[in-house]
């Protein structure tokens, strides 16, 4: 079984933009197949893996969602062999100029994002202005004829930054949002191989979180879990976000969500567990909503009690996202401990009178 770091490096080297997750889904399915009793794919392409519990039937169900889609770009128009681009997911255009990319045309083509010189831009964009995506181009180095044979409108463009290991157990690359959580969920499933749990566990790698929360809206509908947990990334403290209450220490453990998008009983259970395990952790208050699949999952059909567990990550939505491998391992361990400790009547015992 692959270790977390190698699995994660492999996952972030595979394309899997929102709506086009197949390449990374296949890799995750390979990793999960030995860890699950059943594997299936939802109508929108989410990966569903079931680990049956040992409790008596009918067994309650826990769903853990980690979105597998990543942000990137898409060809919107081809002009003289240069590619105009639009975003898939939320991208600050200011990080784009000079980025190496891969254009997924008839075959994968290396390219670079260009910022045209000021004289080719409208007069209102001066030297200090941010250049919107509309004005940027991707240059593949090929002639216009070659481009029109190999690339067309709608083709995807992903970041080409290869994974980097910086010291202190950190990993850097694109798509760590949210492949880091997929790796954490995988670590949890590995731990469960050697442990007993009463509940059925559905590990779900959701699609399209970055665009429509599509997987979050649809996977719980037929699975109808009794509880749902979203595992995602949150902001780690660093340049520009050091004093922000919405940022947490890199390497200081998983972050537990609190707010209207979270069921207080689930927060309490995770907080008590993290303290009992002496696991470094932090609490993230989210006044309105969590910015994760939990937004959707909480209000599917009759409603589902939800929890959000987050992994701190620097420079979110850039090709140089940074994450701590320790945080990923701790998250996987915390999830496994929660699952093995889940009693059959946990939901029945939830009371709102506190």
């Amino acid at each position, binding site marked *: 079984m692959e270790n977390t770091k190698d699995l994660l490096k492999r996952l972030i080297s595979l394309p899997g933009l929102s709506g086009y997750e197949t390449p990374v889904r296949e890799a995750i399915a390979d990793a999960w197949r030995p860890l699950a009793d059943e594997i299936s794919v939802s109508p929108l392409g989410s990966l569903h893996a079931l680990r049956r519990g040992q409790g008596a039937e009918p067994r309650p169900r826990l769903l853990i969602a980690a979105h597998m889609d990543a942000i990137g770009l898409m060809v919107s128009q081809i002009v003289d062999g240069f590619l105009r681009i639009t975003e898939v997911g939320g991208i600050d255009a200011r990080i784009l100029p000079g980025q190496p990319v891969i254009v997924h045309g008839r075959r994968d083509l290396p390219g670079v994002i260009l910022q045209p010189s000021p004289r080719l831009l409208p007069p209102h964009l001066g030297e200090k202005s941010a250049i919107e995506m509309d004005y940027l181009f991707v240059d593949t180095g090929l002639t216009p004829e070659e481009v029109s044979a190999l690339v067309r409108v709608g083709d995807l463009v992903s970041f080409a930054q290869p994974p980097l290991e910086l010291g202190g157990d950190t990993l850097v690359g694109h798509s760590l949002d949210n492949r880091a959580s997929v790796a954490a969920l995988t670590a949890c499933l590995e731990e469960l191989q050697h442990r007993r749990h009463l509940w059925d566990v559905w590990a779900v790698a959701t699609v399209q979180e970055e665009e429509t929360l599509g997987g979050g809206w649809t996977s719980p509908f037929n699975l109808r879990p009794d509880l749902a947990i979203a595992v995602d990334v949150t902001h780690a403290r660093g340049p520009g976000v050091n004093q922000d209450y919405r940022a947490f220490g890199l390497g200081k453990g998983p972050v537990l969500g*609190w707010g*209207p998008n979270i069921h207080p009983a689930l927060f309490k259970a995770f907080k008590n567990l993290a303290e009992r395990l002496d696991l470094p952790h932090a609490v993230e208050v989210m006044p309105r909503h969590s910015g994760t699949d939990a937004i959707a999952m909480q209000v599917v059909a009759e*409603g589902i009690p939800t929890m959000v567990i987050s992994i701190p990550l620097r420079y979110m939505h850039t090709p140089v996202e940074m994450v701590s491998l320790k945080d990923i391992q701790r998250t996987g361990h915390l999830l496994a401990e929660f699952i093995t400790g889940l009693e059959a009547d946990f939901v029945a015992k939830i009371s*709102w*009178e506190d």
Partner: protein
Amino acid sequence: MDPQNLPLDLLERLSNACGVSGDEGEVRKIVLEAVKPLADEVKVDALGNVLAIKKARGEPALRVMLAAHMDEVGLMIVDEEEGGLYKFEIVGGIDPRQLPGKPVWVGKDRLPGVIGARPIHLTTPEERKSAIAAESLRIDLGPEGGKKAKPGDRAVFATPFKVVGPSVMGKALDDRLGVATLITLLERAPSHLEFQAAFTVQEEIGLRGARVAAYTLNPDLAFALDATPANDLPTWDGSENTTYNARLGHGPAVYVADGATLSDPRLVRFLLQTAAAHHIPYQIRQPGGGGTDAGAIHRQRSGIPSASVSVPIRHAHSAVAVARLDDWANTINLMLHTLQALTPDILAPERS
């Protein structure tokens, strides 16, 4: 319903209770106490909605859902600073200009605190031209206030409810008026309908409770009971006020359209015909903007014909709202007569 017989005690308790979106426990407690003796089935769902059903006598009966939201707009503490000062964020739609210089209640223990403002002496005329930014405001629990509250605690305007002549003043009249109305209607539920009372959560942050409540209840039709802003003050230049939305003293506000729902015309017609038949004053809430739980309800399952009826209130989403007892009484009356007269025939013709 006579204005003399209005359940003012109940409204007072509801208005004074603290229930910011996501933290409706205090209101839920009052509601549960009130509805348990009145309903055949009561349940609290995964989001904290209270669903109370009074079955009909005889089948098949029209299933009617009525929704009133328990949550209010408020604040959440997000960070603690030195000396009893706390940073906060707004939950729901509050104009930040409503915040400076206000007392608040913080947390489950209602700790008294204040949101201050820079003294005028230390400001410049230039500065006073712009609104005070919400990020610069803090909740102050006093010099001994350190560690008394924590991130995640909610805070509300510290406004005690009171009756003032023909009006009531209090916080959270949006939508404790609706909640009190719904309890009153449940007490008098007509026996030919299945009466589905949904006391919803998290309306102010996206109509979230109503969505799952409607899915669970699966009604034939639905009414949302809310409060709507009455912007009926004089205009700055004395010209005709054409954007009042609703007006105090003009009766319940019936919605044809708001920002979230195009009301089912069959339900609107029925409401207006009922009002006319019983000489109940009413107004049409000005189309456009805003939203009620009906916005989530009408899109559930295969579609649920829906409409909203609100009590007009001045200064909604601020420290002190004002409503007329007459308007509240007429809202209850309109809904009582409507429910009594409702039959499945209302849905026989196509929506038009």
